[in-house]
């Protein structure tokens, strides 16, 4: 492969994935300027190690992996990653079911038709710790499998699953809270008359 061919392949597979990498970096960093720096550093590293990229592998996934490593290095001295692999994701789901019932009884019903969902989801994602946000971006936004997400994050599939469960639960919770703050639902439902 000539240098020109090598760079053409880099364009087609790696530069073409830029919008996805930007979205991923923004979800990680939560600061657009920092995200841009992460993306630039990601591309620099990707270019330097392009020769090691296996033809036919998933370039986007490869870039996510690099981007997350760059990000982790960046915040090495900041607070350590909260590892939630030992927590019971299923219990979280159970709590979510109970909450859902309560919220519904206090007028939740058509919540999703009554709030601006996209901003609510964005602010909810912004509020959850990065490990959860990243799981949601990889699986629910990018459509990666649990296995692929585990590969990008360097954790077991079970950890992806529990992070995802918790993230989604937090997301649901935030949507309820968003609706309450917007005055759409009252929780808990106040007893007696005069609530209107």
């Amino acid at each position, binding site marked *: 492969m000539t240098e020109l061919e090598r760079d053409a392949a880099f364009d087609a597979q790696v530069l073409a994935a830029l919008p996805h990498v*930007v979205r991923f970096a923004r979800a990680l960093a939560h600061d657009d300027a920092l995200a841009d720096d992460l*993306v630039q550093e990601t591309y620099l590293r990707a270019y330097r190690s392009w020769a090691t990229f296996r033809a036919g592998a998933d370039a986007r996934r490869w870039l996510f992996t690099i981007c997350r490593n760059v990000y982790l290095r960046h915040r090495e001295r900041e607070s350590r990653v909260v590892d939630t692999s030992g927590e019971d994701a299923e219990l979280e789901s159970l709590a979510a079911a109970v909450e859902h019932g309560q919220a519904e009884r206090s007028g939740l019903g058509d919540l999703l038709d009554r709030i601006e969902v996209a901003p609510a989801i964005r602010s909810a994602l912004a509020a959850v710790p990065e490990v959860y946000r990243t799981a949601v971006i990889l699986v629910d936004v990018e459509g990666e499998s649990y296995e692929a997400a585990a590969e990008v994050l360097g954790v077991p599939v079970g950890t992806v699953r529990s992070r995802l469960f918790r993230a989604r639960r937090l997301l649901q919770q935030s949507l309820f809270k968003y609706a309450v703050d917007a005055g759409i639902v009252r929780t808990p439902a106040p007893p007696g008359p005069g609530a209107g």
Partner: protein
Amino acid sequence: MTTTDERGSPALIECEAAARALYDYLDGRLPMATEASVYWHIETCRNCASHFAFARRVLDLVPSAVPLAGEAHALRARIVESLKVEGYAER
């Protein structure tokens, strides 16, 4: 764990088991027998049906809430400049 009974029809499960299986079910990660049990539970349980439907809708709405970054022209130019230093030849 939920299994099928002797007649081969899905075993009845409780709301708690359904709640635990929620996301595995929505992501299609349950073994067939368990999936059938969850399916029949939400067919017959109003609360769980509502919860599952809500969770499904939220998951469906997430991708459009986090749109792609667009063309990111300025950033792309910045990246290309830094790659040129490494020997990259822009086409």
